[in-house]
């Protein structure tokens, strides 16, 4: 999933102060993993392996644990950001409403499998767990926006729109 491209990752001075400030909130240093992951994602847009090792050092744990947590939550970007990142929910409510066919339709239109990017580097498609919009399934998230009550027609319209700009 993650690219091998090297980016130097470090916490800025402001971030370091913030870390010290919140450190006391947690029982163990390990508790800091989640806030630190968010910080990295906010600062760099994604979380590289180097970043994970940096966080592991800060939290006195092994990088593997950071990796485990980072892969668990689909909200953490483990690859470089891309123009259109389509995240289709396939947890229970959406699944019952037909998310499978939405995902299949998208795979068909974009010519890629879930978890892959298009060759032009504009679209990435991922199947993700619940995004907490169960009342309006099937739904997906494009970057930070929700698109709800999807049908294949709606999806086609959206793709037309995004392809145009």
């Amino acid at each position: 999933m993650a690219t091998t491209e090297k980016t130097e990752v470090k916490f800025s001075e402001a971030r370091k102060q913030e870390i010290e400030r919140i450190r006391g909130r947690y029982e163990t240093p390990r508790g800091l993993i989640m806030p630190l992951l968010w910080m990295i994602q906010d600062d760099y847009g994604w979380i590289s392996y180097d970043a994970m090792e940096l966080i592991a050092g800060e939290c006195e744990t092994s990088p593997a644990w950071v990796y485990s947590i980072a892969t668990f939550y689909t909200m953490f970007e483990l690859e470089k950001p891309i123009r259109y990142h389509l995240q289709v929910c396939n947890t229970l409510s959406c699944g019952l409403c037909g998310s499978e066919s939405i995902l299949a339709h998208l795979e068909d239109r974009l010519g890629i499998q879930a978890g892959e990017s298009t060759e032009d580097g504009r679209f990435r498609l991922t199947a993700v767990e619940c995004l907490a919009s169960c009342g309006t399934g099937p739904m997906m998230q494009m970057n930070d926006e929700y698109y709800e009550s999807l049908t294949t027609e709606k999806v086609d319209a959206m793709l037309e729109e995004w392809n145009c700009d």
Partner: protein
Amino acid sequence: MAKITINGVEQAVEDGLYLIEAARRCGVDIPHYCYHPGLPVEGNCRMCSVEVEGIPKLQTACTTIVQDGMVVITDSEKVVGERSDVMEFLLRNHPIDCPICDQAGECGLQDYYMEHGLHDSRITVSEKVKKKKRVDLGPNVVLDSERCILCTRCVRFCKDVVGTEELVIKNRSNHAEITTFPGKGLVNPYALNTVDICPVGALTSRKFRFQCRVWYMKNATSICPGCERGCNIWIDHHENKIQRLRPRLNPDVNNYWMCDEGRLDFHWINDDRVLRAEGPDGLMRPDEADRAVLALLSNPGDVLIVASPRSTNESLFALKRFVEVALPGAALTGGSFRPTGDDDGFLRLPDKNPNSRGMREIGIAGDLENRLNGSAGVVLVFENDLLGDRPDLESVLAGKKVVAFTSNRTATARGADLVVPVTTYAELNGSFTNHAGLRQEFRSAIRPPGDSRSVFDVVKSLSGLLGKELGWESETALTKEMTDVITGWGVRVEEETELHAG
């Protein structure tokens, strides 16, 4: 003590026990995957769900601590149904590739499916989530992700027993997998224990996988000779070849674990053995070898006998008696030049000989180096690879007649004038005394290859030729006298515990 009622039978158990352990001690087996008595509890497999009176939902026995007056039912319809359903979940993505799986025969899924599952699958194999069949986790461990049921025993072992935290679960739900951090491996020196505790065939030993089906193997209780810890082990063997070593529960010594180094150190027993006695004139029969040795013993004052802390207590005791009775005047010394290791604070200890303490307590002096530099013209080396451990001794031994009693073609054996094959610990009933002074007995696993004899048999034959009696008819008599003579060496009763039950 807490009084609990399991399946209508009231029993008293210790306070603070987990229910699953309490039930086990009461003779009730509760099926489980993620629970392991040597690991912290997690309660994720749900296989151990039981009914506890007063609580509407089923409780996992591995996370529930016993309380006085608890009433537990482990075989009600509800519990049995739950187990069956849990089995179906666990097998949701399992590839059912038992024919190619090394775990087949000692697999938790197979056993519990027959006991508690027996449902028809609602999932076809093609519908199952495909994962990687072969992931090299480290130098010794191979992972089959498909077979994994995510019980996290291996994760907890690395985190809580070894503390290296190499293994984690990545992703979630259907796509969750055991993994290491990208680019890093499972490299801790105890990694192969994860293979033992894996209840399914997901983790396999690179050295053992595909070598032998488990139902062919017979096993024997033994003691690891890798260091002075004296870990209790099982020797699993088939067709007189050792196939693998596994740790055997002993809470006082090694608990459920052993190190990889000790576990993989058995190929020398299978391969490159000395099968026939060998002298300057070629191969000899055992009786010819004994006469050849005897010819060198004409002047006892000129003889140095080198014992080894790798020999069993019985061998050392017999050797000592042999020198006292049949060869008075000869010098007996012991010791080893084996390179020492580190004490890593868990199991591995610096002294890589299993019986250094036993040798000391039997009363064999450890002044090996001085004695070797002495004037003795004939050196009888018992199970000791002097030259292999210290190549610079070659000049010291150069002018001497060296007789090597050895199991393998060691450097010492190659440099010796006379080589006599003897057994290894795996072919012998005997005992080692570990660093803490605990004398631990073990049983022979395989038949001695070729003309190999135990040291006891060798010295008995030699003393017979010398016209002297050692005073024991059998090894049993030897053991009895030895344990009578040496304080604190009373016979220890072995408690045989099968690892899988843990």
